[in-house]
Each structure stands twice: as structure tokens, then as C-alpha cells.
């Protein structure tokens, strides 16, 4: 059993209840093929960094689950034919995970669930150190150019 992240983008003009139907369908695929869903996150409508199928916005959904390769095969086969899904990506996070660890994590997740959602949907917290880190690459860039001229 491996652990996977599946992110897919649904067209933003799909009504809310239909989005839930779509998500539930993919959740169902995971569980029907002996996979375990760790968490499902709805990131909501986000601006896409570039246009996909002439659309500038999309509804992001993350499924975090444990399973074997047939699960992925079935999910991707379905996602490929789904017209409402603009893009999907599966990433293997861990190899051969132990179910005990996953159960422990799921128990922990349930407790702090409200926190989790806030973090996923809200904007990233800005730390005080951020302006410094942002300015540095540009500064360093000019320095490096000078260095190469030597």
C-alpha cells in the first residue's frame, strides 16, 4: 500500500451540489478498490496560473489516500474521460505505508479538523521574515552578475 495525493481541478461554473457528487464518485472509487481515504480537501475556486481549456478559474479538490496501483489506474481512467475535470495529478507521497500509522494519523486529523480546513482554504499566513526573504534574491542576483564579470 502506498500513499497518494490526488489533486484535480473541476470547472468553476459547475454548481456546488454537482461538485459534491463528482467528489463523492471519486471517493467511492478509492474505497471500492480497497483504498483508504485519509482526507479530502476542497480548496474552492482558485485562479489558475495559466488557462486550461480556455478557463481562468477552477475548483481544486485534494484527495489524500492509501492504496495500490489499481486504484490509481481506475481513478485516472475515469478522470481522463470526465469533461468537467480540467486537470488531475497524482503524486506518490510514501511507499509501503503501515496501516497502523495511517489510522493514528486519521485519529489525529479528526481532532484538529477545523484547523485543517482553515489552513487549506485561507491565504497563507505571512511571517514577519517574509519581506526579507523576498528582497534577497534580487539583491543576490545583481551581486552574482558582478561576480561573473570578473
Amino acid at each position, binding site marked *: 500500500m502506498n500513499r497518494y*495525493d490526488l*489533486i484535480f*481541478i473541476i470547472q468553476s461554473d459547475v454548481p456546488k451540489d454537482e461538485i459534491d457528487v463528482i467528489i463523492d464518485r471519486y471517493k467511492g472509487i478509492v474505497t471500492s478498490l480497497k483504498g483508504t481515504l485519509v482526507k479530502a480537501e476542497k480548496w474552492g475556486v*482558485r485562479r*489558475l*496560473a*495559466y488557462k*486550461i481549456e480556455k478557463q481562468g478559474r*477552477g475548483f*481544486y479538490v*485534494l484527495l489524500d489516500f492509501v492504496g495500490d496501483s489499481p486504484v490509481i489506474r481506475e481513478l485516472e481512467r475515469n478522470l481522463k474521460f470526465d469533461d468537467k475535470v480540467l*486537470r488531475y*495529478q497524482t*503524486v506518490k507521497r510514501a511507499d509501503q505505508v503501515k496501516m497502523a500509522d495511517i489510522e493514528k494519523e486519521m485519529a489525529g486529523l479528526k481532532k484538529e479538523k477545523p484547523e485543517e480546513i482553515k489552513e487549506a482554504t485561507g*491565504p*497563507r499566513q505571512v511571517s514577519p*521574515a517574509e519581506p526579507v*526573504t*523576498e528582497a*534577497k*534574491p534580487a539583491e*543576490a*542576483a545583481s*551581486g*552574482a552578475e*558582478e561576480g561573473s564579470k*570578473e
Partner: protein
Amino acid sequence: MATGDRPRPERRGFHRRKVCKFCTDSNMKIEYKDPGTLRHFVSEKGKIIPRRITGNCARHQRELTTAIKRARAIALLPFVVSES
């Protein structure tokens, strides 16, 4: 004579030692799902900033590039930012 032609340009200012941000700050994680952090390591054009400039260590730069590429694939980061 060989070395006397042109005086070596003196190093201006001071040399700032660059350190890997991910090594110094342990709660900074490389995560492809977090475009906010990745943005710092991408130029305005959307290109990955080289290690020589950001000062990242090899290991973290490697993780960073895969994270940026994953983020690009799902439209969290742009491949290119064209002038408009």
C-alpha cells in the same frame, strides 16, 4: 607583466554568505501544494531561480525544483509569465 596589466578589481562591499533557507528554518517546508513559498524561488518570468543565487543547498534545491514543476502541472504556478 602577466599579472600587471590590469589590477584585479577589488571586491566591493562585503561578501554575504548565503545559507539555505530550508536548512536554517526548520518549519519551512517544500511542498508543491503551497505556491506561496515556492513563489520566492521563482523569478518574475516564472523561471526557477538557480541555487547560485538563492544559496539553497543541493538537496533542498533538488526538492524545490520537483515541487515547482509539480505545482506548474496543476496550474498553481505559471510555466511562463509573458509581458503584457
